[in-house]
């Protein structure tokens, strides 16, 4: 019994990380109707920048995380304005191909700059701290922190979207960029800011991932898949759904790993396909605005 409780708890904690992977993806799709296939690679890039910055600043992972978030945020803004803006509104094919090309560039660019070896961000004592819930279930402090961050990010995004003037612009531009322009909203600037926020979240997700586990330049696509599966399982258009979806994938992976460590990823994919078969709109579907 306690084994299953442990799987559940660890799955929920892992789900927090996957929800962080997915949050940025969800934001970009919600606003720009573009799925950024390079999102996973940006998460990895964020981890590398955090590692480099953290090391340069004396081994402080928090400092590394902040630098990474700023760097990727700025990169996202520029990327949107200079490259991705032209891919919007040109149909699915254009956006997919451009972001896919970006993914290839990023992945191989990282290979050029960093070695193909696995790396990890050192966060010191917090990595092994934990407390017992009883019944043989141990909750790590850092995974719990990641889950808390995920909840915090989602709360912040909800507040931003529904309670600020910028959020109004975001929603208007997502619905009808032309009319928003007529009302004085600079749609391109809004898109660029949304992309900046999304990549900053990706950087945070990458840093968390880098502390929890090892990473290498080719690890991006897998992260994209986990984030994407979390979004679909949770339901398009719902940020809380994304959190729930992340938890589902996390728990599924935990069950798979328990049966056989090689089956961890496969279990996650199978759970995703099962939800797609049985409940295609996801667990917490909102208004379908695809």
């Amino acid at each position, binding site marked *: 019994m306690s084994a299953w409780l442990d799987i559940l708890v660890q799955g929920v904690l892992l789900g927090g990380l996957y929800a962080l992977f997915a949050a940025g993806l969800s934001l970009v799709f919600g606003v720009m109707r573009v799925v950024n296939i390079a999102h996973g690679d940006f998460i990895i890039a964020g981890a590398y920048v955090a590692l480099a910055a953290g090391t340069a600043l004396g081994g402080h992972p928090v400092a590394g995380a902040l630098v990474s978030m700023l760097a990727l945020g700025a990169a996202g803004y520029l990327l949107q304005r200079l490259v991705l803006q032209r891919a919007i509104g040109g149909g699915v094919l*254009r956006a997919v*191909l451009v972001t*896919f090309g970006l993914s290839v560039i990023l992945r*191989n660019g990282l290979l050029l700059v960093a070695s193909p070896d696995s790396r990890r961000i050192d966060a010191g004592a917090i990595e092994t701290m934990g407390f017992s819930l009883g019944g043989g279930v141990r909750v790590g402090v850092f995974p719990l922190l990641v889950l808390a961050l995920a909840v915090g990010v989602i709360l912040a995004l909800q507040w931003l979207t529904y309670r600020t003037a910028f959020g109004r612009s975001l929603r208007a531009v997502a619905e009808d960029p032309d009319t928003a322009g007529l009302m004085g909203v600079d749609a391109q600037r809004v898109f660029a800011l949304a992309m900046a926020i999304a990549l900053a979240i990706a950087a945070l997700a990458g840093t968390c991932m880098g502390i929890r586990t090892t990473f290498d330049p080719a690890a991006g*696509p897998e992260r994209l898949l986990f984030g994407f599966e979390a979004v679909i399982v949770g339901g398009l258009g719902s940020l809380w759904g994304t959190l729930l979806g992340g938890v589902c994938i996390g728990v599924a992976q935990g069950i798979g790993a328990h049966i056989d460590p*090689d089956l961890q990823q496969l279990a996650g994919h199978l759970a995703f396909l099962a939800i797609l078969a049985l409940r*295609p709109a996801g667990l917490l579907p909102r208004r379908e605005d695809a």
Partner: protein
Amino acid sequence: MSNDAMRPKGHVRAGTVLLLLAVAVLASLPAWGGRRELHLCAEFCCYLALAQLWNLLAGYAGLVSIGQQAFVGVGAYALFLGCVLSPMPPLLGLPLAALAAALVALPAAWLLFRLRGAYFAIGSWAVAETLRLAASQLTVLGGGSGKSLPIGVVHAIASTRGVRDALLFWLSLLVLVGVMAGILWLLRSRTGLALTALRDNPATAASVGIPAGRLKLAVFAGAAAATGLVGALLFLNRLRVAPDAAFDLDWTTNAMFIVVIGGLGSLEGPVLGALFFFACRELFSQHGAAYLVAMGAIAITMMLWAPAGLWGLLRGSRGSSLFDTRRRP
């Protein structure tokens, strides 16, 4: 409306002659080419076929897939399973591969057609990953490390290595010609017209009675079958299969690069793209990651500033074609 509009233009006739010439020259390759040339050209034919099929799905049927490697892998594994588990002639594994891929495509489509646009793209990738991981569990074919084709089976393909290389090359060429002829035929038929209507405006197409779902499924399954066939050929050529190689994302990445650089939505484009791709690979691939960064950058540049690709740049605004894809009633 006169029949003049339907008569093939001069450059289409010239193009057809050029094409037949090229095929004839290629077909004679075993007579004057060495082992390396045969393997390279066989690969070229396979890559080009994969690109044409990806182009059919994305450029004509509106199905942008990042998961075609699923069918490459299914085809390869079907052939190897058939050869390893039974005494069947190895070449019979080719139609078996096509059939297996088509059968896998059916439930895959049932799942994936619930997703739209870019989500369909990533979903197809997820399916491919699932199949890759599942293939790693097949101990009969070596699990994660894969398996080589048993010697007995290798000898059953042909009596000598020279004959085997020639045979597999001719099969690759035949498959390429078949795929392109098939696509050309499809586009000229009523189905092709329906496809174009579907791609341009799905709602209107449905309202005039075009069975969108069935059409998409037919094209998806057909492309899957052909992709499976090519996959089986590719790995028959290599004499060894492994999950990471068979289900490698690179199969689709390369097809995408070839199509984007050569020109989307035309039959001529991928041919140019494949020539460019192989030329670059022969010249630059020793630079590894830098070469791939450059390819990615070229692909993005083409997509944003020259969406009709190299072929589009070549033919300018005259709109000429080598292949006449207009409908023949």
